[in-house]
């Protein structure tokens, strides 16, 4: 515990955990829903591209959409059945815009495709492990949904020394990581050893918030005899932010704008480690995940193992339906998750929870003017000045807000949570980040079109020059021909009198 006496978490808040609603019920498996809406954009990066056609029979775990480009992830059939449709469907995104989706009608047999199970997974080459992780479509299951194999490959190349397994789960309500650590600790430790081998790092630390004593005990038990170290960290929000976790466990800070690998650290979520074990040791691609169903407006809050593509409504139904009318449906945690416009949004790889919240839980106070109390400054885990950034964004001065560190904001919501004036600070930051990204895109486009315009002008000039040249040549040729003709005529005319004379 000596380490933690030195660690002082920067900023952060202590929201009411509400984890007791679902933490003590064992994981249950959700019965197969009638239809699965498997999104092709479940990860950061390019959407996967379908490799099946409508009407085709698919088996559980069969590849249905292949990854496209460097940062992407493939998608597999969560159960056996047939492809009912390929097209746009509701996406788990705050915009409510649709995403390309493969709809699967399960046949009820849940029949696995042939699985490629290695004899000794721990003897596989590091590249082979990363390849299998990529082929299984594993992405960061903590919510970021960044393709895991990309991280493994970068870390192997940059000689990462420390693997941090993030069991922070600092978001209120969510308990899926807690439950997976309590019930499936051995598989998580196996996954950690596989990731260690894939990256070639010696040290593996599991950081778990100290409000999950059962999970800590289970993980310690499972980690016995391995070099995996389980370390409790103080419970606070956002402890599960990878950089905060890194600071807590190794005492190093990731530079602004940098990656964890810059300081020799790789961070993965516990559920990702579990998925790596499933994929590499058992050959099973990522086709289901643990989802916390919670909130006061749910009858029985619990954790479910859910096939990807299940509409959120099926989860609420299984949990006994709503207790009263929910005021808001949220996908993810209450701090960083987003509102679901309707309950038919499908579960994706990054869905850690679906919440049905009552009016009492959400509270929608009307914002009042900023009194510059600086409570948000103390709450910011990154050390920014949310009040200054928001003030500049409010009047449209985005560049100054960038000077204040807008790009380092992780949108954790701590500032909005503590603001006594109820100013939607994170909303301002999300807007500004989007606006700046749009400007950046427009600038790139302008540069591209400028090059196109220049290329076209050059081409037009070349064509005009070529034409001129051709017409000049034609004229010269014609002149030469005429000259030749004239010369011939002259010669003939000159010859004629001579002939006459000789005659």
């Amino acid at each position, binding site marked *: 515990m000596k380490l933690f006496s030195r660690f002082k978490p920067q900023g952060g808040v202590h929201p009411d955990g509400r984890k007791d609603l679902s933490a003590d019920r064992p994981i249950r498996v959700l019965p197969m829903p009638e239809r699965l809406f498997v999104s092709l*954009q479940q990860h950061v990066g390019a959407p996967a591209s379908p490799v099946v056609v409508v009407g085709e029979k698919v088996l559980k775990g069969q590849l249905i959409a292949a990854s496209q480009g460097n940062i992407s992830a493939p998608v597999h059939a969560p159960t056996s059945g047939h492809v009912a449709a390929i097209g746009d469907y509701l*996406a788990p*995104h*705050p*915009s409510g*815009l649709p*995403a390309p989706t493969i709809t699967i009608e399960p046949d009820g047999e849940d029949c696995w495709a042939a699985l490629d199970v290695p004899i000794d997974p721990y003897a596989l080459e590091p590249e082979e492990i990363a390849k299998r992780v990529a082929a299984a479509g594993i992405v960061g299951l903590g919510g970021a949904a960044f393709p895991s194999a990309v991280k493994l490959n970068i870390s192997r190349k940059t000689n990462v020394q420390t693997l941090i397994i993030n069991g922070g789960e600092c978001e209120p309500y969510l308990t899926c990581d807690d439950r997976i650590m309590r019930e499936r600790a051995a598989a998580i430790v196996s996954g950690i050893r596989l990731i260690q081998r894939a990256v070639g790092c010696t040290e593996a630390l599991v950081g778990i918030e100290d409000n999950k004593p059962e999970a800590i005990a289970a993980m310690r038990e499972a980690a016995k005899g391995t070099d995996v170290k389980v370390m409790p960290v103080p419970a606070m929000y956002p402890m599960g932010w990878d950089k905060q976790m890194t600071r807590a466990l190794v005492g190093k800070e990731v530079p602004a704008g940098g990656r964890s690998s810059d300081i020799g650290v790789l961070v993965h979520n516990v559920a990702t480690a579990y998925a790596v074990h499933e994929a590499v040791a058992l050959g099973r691609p990522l086709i289901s995940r643990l989802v916390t169903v919670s909130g006061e407006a749910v009858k029985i809050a619990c954790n479910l193992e859910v096939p990807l593509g299940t509409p959120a409504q099926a989860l609420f139904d299984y949990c006994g339906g709503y207790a009263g009318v929910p005021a808001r449906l949220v996908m993810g945690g209450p701090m960083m998750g987003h509102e679901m416009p309707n309950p038919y949004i499908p579960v994706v790889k990054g869905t850690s929870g679906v919440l049905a919240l009552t009016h009492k839980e959400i509270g929608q*106070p*009307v*914002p*009042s*003017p900023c009194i510059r109390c600086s409570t948000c400054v103390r709450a910011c885990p990154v050390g920014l000045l949310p009040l200054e950034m928001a003030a500049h*964004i*409010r009047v449209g001065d985005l560049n100054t807000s960038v000077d204040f560190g807008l790009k380092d904001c992780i949108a954790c919501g701590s500032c909005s949570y503590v603001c006594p004036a109820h100013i*939607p600070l994170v*909303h*301002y930051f*999300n*807007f500004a*980040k*989007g*606006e700046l*990204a*749009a*400007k950046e*895109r*427009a600038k790139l*486009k*302008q540069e*591209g*079109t*400028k090059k*196109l*315009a*220049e*290329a*076209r*002008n050059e081409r037009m000039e070349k064509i005009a020059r070529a034409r001129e040249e051709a017409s000049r040549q034609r004229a010269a040729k014609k002149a030469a021909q005429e000259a030749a003709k004239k010369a011939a005529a002259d010669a003939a005319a000159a010859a004629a009198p001579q002939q006459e004379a000789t005659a």
Partner: protein
Amino acid sequence: MFVAVASLTTLGLILGLLLGVAARRLAVEGNPLIEEIQAILPGSQCGQCGFPGCAGAAQALVAGEAPVTLCPPGGRDVVAALALKLGIEVDLSGIKDSGPQIAEVKEELCIGCTRCFKVCPTDAILGASKHIHSVFREACTACGKCVEACPTEAIAMRPVPVTLQSWYWDKPEERLAA
């Protein structure tokens, strides 16, 4: 007295000479500001400003003969950048900005005459004679030349469609408690 006059005269002569040499050696051809301004403009030479291409517009801007709001395809961002560069204050709220737009070919009206892609300054239209033409979204600057060229009114400008990748949050409404 003599020393003062002599030293000042020498000083003046030397400095004058230096200035003269500098003016010759460090002479700048043309106005560099014109090039900088041209870099800000979209460069698609669409001519909507009434000047012959972006170079002409840049010259007019530097000469103060044109307002910074002259470029319709550039929108508000270009106005802001021009005003910053030229040190002019503008009220951006009055400027009409229809947001990013692109041209779209209505396929049922296109007769494949190829007139639009012959005028497109950025080669953003694909097609061949008697085949339906199509617009590359990434290359279209919304200059509107193709709209004028189309004999069947098959091309129209429309806002760039919002996708999952390009969507972002609206600015929070300011509804403060009294």
